[in-house]
């Protein structure tokens, strides 16, 4: 005869499931990698003579880092904390100083004419430069450009750049381009050309 089996107590099932859940929550990763994103310039074709793009000297903001991690912006030694302000000043060039990048009036869709700076930040490093210093300098350059974009966005739209919608962001990007050139590698410290 079939006997009546006693019920299995299932009240601890929730505890077991919770335990598993916590285990998975702790051991798995959902973190998103963050960092500074860059686009490398394409490699010039081998048999093609590399054309020197003629950029007026005043438009190039040279940032050099040597193997002792000393930084130069333009022709003066600079501390990391000052890079941002220097680049902001040079790219905005409020007084139209002839030694700083010139501006070119461009018609921007949705905005009208705006004097866009032709400044290009050229970043040069030595083989012996620490990666950390390099990233810090990259970070400062991006920070300078973000600050200019924020300024522009607040002036024209009354909002920070990050809060604008996509169309407006595109306009801001066009008005304040991020021109960073990562030069062909060369030794900065060893003899000048």
């Amino acid at each position: 005869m079939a006997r009546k089996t006693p019920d299995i107590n299932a009240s601890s099932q929730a505890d077991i499931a919770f335990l598993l859940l916590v285990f998975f929550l702790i051991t798995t990763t959902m973190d998103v990698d963050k960092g500074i994103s860059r686009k490398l310039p394409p490699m010039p074709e081998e048999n093609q003579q590399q054309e020197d793009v003629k950029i007026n000297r005043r438009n190039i903001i040279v940032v050099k880092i040597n193997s002792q991690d000393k930084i130069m912006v333009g022709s003066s030694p600079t501390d990391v904390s000052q890079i941002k302000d220097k680049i902001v000043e040079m790219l905005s060039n409020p007084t139209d100083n002839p030694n700083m990048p010139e501006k070119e009036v461009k018609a921007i869709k949705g905005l009208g004419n705006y004097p866009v700076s032709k400044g290009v930040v050229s970043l040069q490093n030595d083989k012996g430069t620490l990666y950390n210093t390099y990233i810090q300098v990259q970070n400062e350059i991006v920070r300078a450009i973000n600050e200019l974009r924020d300024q522009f966005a607040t002036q024209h739209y009354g909002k920070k750049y990050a809060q604008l919608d996509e169309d407006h962001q595109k306009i801001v990007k066009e008005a304040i381009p991020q021109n960073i050139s990562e030069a062909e590698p060369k030794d900065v410290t060893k003899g000048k050309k």
Partner: protein
Amino acid sequence: MGRFRKGGKKSAPAISTASLPDIVFMLLFFFMISTSFRQTDKLVQVKLPAATENTKLERKDLTSYIYVGAPIPSKQAQYGTDSRIQLNDSYKTVNEIRDFIAAERESISEGEREAMTVALKADENVRMGIITDIKQELRRCSALKILYVARQREAN
């Protein structure tokens, strides 16, 4: 009003917890499916540099990782302490990046190859020489979108 009497004789019925395990299991399965275990074993020590102006990596499935740093202590007897490049699960030289990128590119569907990103996870104490070599090699393979992975740091 005397509508809600306190301390009435009727006690509230107990809430049934019978469905609690089901809910928790559902959560469990969600996490099991949506998260991933670490894919590769780290062979190099990487302490990422810190930056404030970080952007998020958008498509993790379109990303290839290159690790650069000193070998982990257990491998140092064999490989020394000089900075090394790690691709997938082994130490590689700069020249092998080309094959690595080609293989990674193969594994991405054709329409999305343009968006392929190389994430460079380099220790903050490596020298730029090795990084520059990697960058030059990436340019040669036309893998031009790169991301210098960094920790988030508060602006001062």
